[in-house]
């Protein structure tokens, strides 16, 4: 996969995850904080000048994050470690 396409796709998935987190009915409030973490990630993508690819949403936020991780892994040479670490931290917190 072309590296910049991989980044654009990963950002698209992160966006979908964020939308899913915001839409979730979650009395614990955890999904709100996860949505904010996704916004933090989007900020990192923006600093790299990545434009998001419009993608169909995955079944849930966790699946979108998994897909984003997969896309980033495919573009590994272009992915700053901070971005990778941030995404994995959000994945670790996201409920399956």
């Amino acid at each position, binding site marked *: 996969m072309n590296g910049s396409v991989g980044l654009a796709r990963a950002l698209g998935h992160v966006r979908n995850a964020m939308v899913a987190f915001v839409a979730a009915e979650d009395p*614990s409030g*955890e999904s709100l904080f996860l949505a904010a973490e996704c916004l933090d990630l*989007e900020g990192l993508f923006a*600093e790299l000048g990545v434009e998001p690819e419009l993608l169909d949403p995955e079944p849930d936020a966790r699946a979108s994050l998994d897909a984003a991780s997969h896309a980033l892994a495919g573009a590994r040479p272009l992915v700053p470690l901070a971005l990778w670490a941030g995404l994995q931290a959000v994945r670790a917190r996201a409920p399956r």
Partner: protein
Amino acid sequence: MTATVGTLLDDVHARAWDLCSRSSEVEEGASHEQLAAGLLAAWPRLANAALRVLDAVHVEPVWLDDASGVREVLRAIAGEKSLASPSVAGSEVAPAGSEHAVLAIATRLGVIADMLSGERAARTEVDRVASLGLQANTVAVVHAVAVTTLAALGDHRELETARWLMRGVLVRSERHAMTPTVERAGRYEDVAAISSEDQSLDGAIARWLPATVAALGSPRRVTQSALQFAAGDALILIATAGTVLNAAAQVGLVRDDRADRARAALVGAHEAWRPLVSWPGTVRLNGVRDIEQFEASRQLRQVITDNLRENRGWLPPETLSDRFDLGSLVGSLRRGLHGVGNVAVAHFQTMDRLVRSPSQLWIAASAVTQTAYRGYATIGAASRKGWVPMPPGEPAGLDLLAGAKLALSRTTLAVAALDASAAASRSQVGAGTLRWDGGRIVAYRADGHPRLFETVHSPEPAGARSERQTPVRLGGPDQPSPRR
């Protein structure tokens, strides 16, 4: 601990109470004349400070009448030079105790006035009730000091002017001093002196608010992520306010009906902000993220997570109640929601500018709905999955603007509802003598009860010779310390 108008009022009332108690036993080595001279010397400053508090919150002109009599007499005292050096035999050396006690009260009232000086003018019913409560809490202290002073003045001929002034204060202030504590509570008690260095929730909010408003307000710095961050933080603060409100209602700090109204308003605001976090995938406003806003947002979330959450959920009400002073915490969240209100205004104004001005937002070329704008360039961009400047009147942009407007109006309602919950939850009034009520001084008129302060009853205008004085009777407070 964050100093608020409420905590300062608590302190002022406790000091006034102590002053009353001590004045019934003349200080060792001091005469009644010296006590009177000390009290009188401090009156101009007390009157000035009280006037400043009464004038601190701008209110509708028709409401001013409520305390106009008090203002008038306080102005007279503030300008009365003779009080500072009463010429009565035996008063040459004023005792430090009584004068310093009144000056300490005046200083704190001055601080309260300073803290309130940044408040917007009172316009709503909630503001009106809160300003009346603030007036009552301020004037009650003035009344207490006036009673004590009048008792100390005795019948010296030289002090007749002072006695007339004090009687004037008593007559005009009594009605305010008798206002039950339950009717005095209001949102102004939550106004706080917060340092941006503060590591508390108040401090985090104090840093977050200007950083967010600045990021949204600058045409150069505003980006999609700045708008999304603002909306996301608003969501989190609203959810936090709801959680703390529930806990406060559970322990009886907030009346059930007011808590229900505030809860419904918070849910409405929460629902309104949600779409503004997500944004439609087909609209963009690129740019470099604002580091200041980003850091402030992250700190705010961190402080909330560290203090109010555990195991990925909110702390249960019982735990919140054990760990925190819930009254203060609700106050912090009320201030926080006012901050969200400011952000909502900035967010709406920015969105309005972005949507109405040409070529500010970008839209996916394939998402352009208006036929007139589907020209060659747009179709070409769509085939490359590209983006084009958003044409005016695109539904995606108008939806964003409508969403921002809804968030602003719902947030305004939520702020008002949460402010209204600041009114006291229940009367602390007992069946017997009512003197120290909820940490505040209350004067009572009901016959048959011992009176805390000397009161003047007269069917004639203030200062009439037929005034009847009842003796001062002082007792200890029902509770040893202010309510907080």
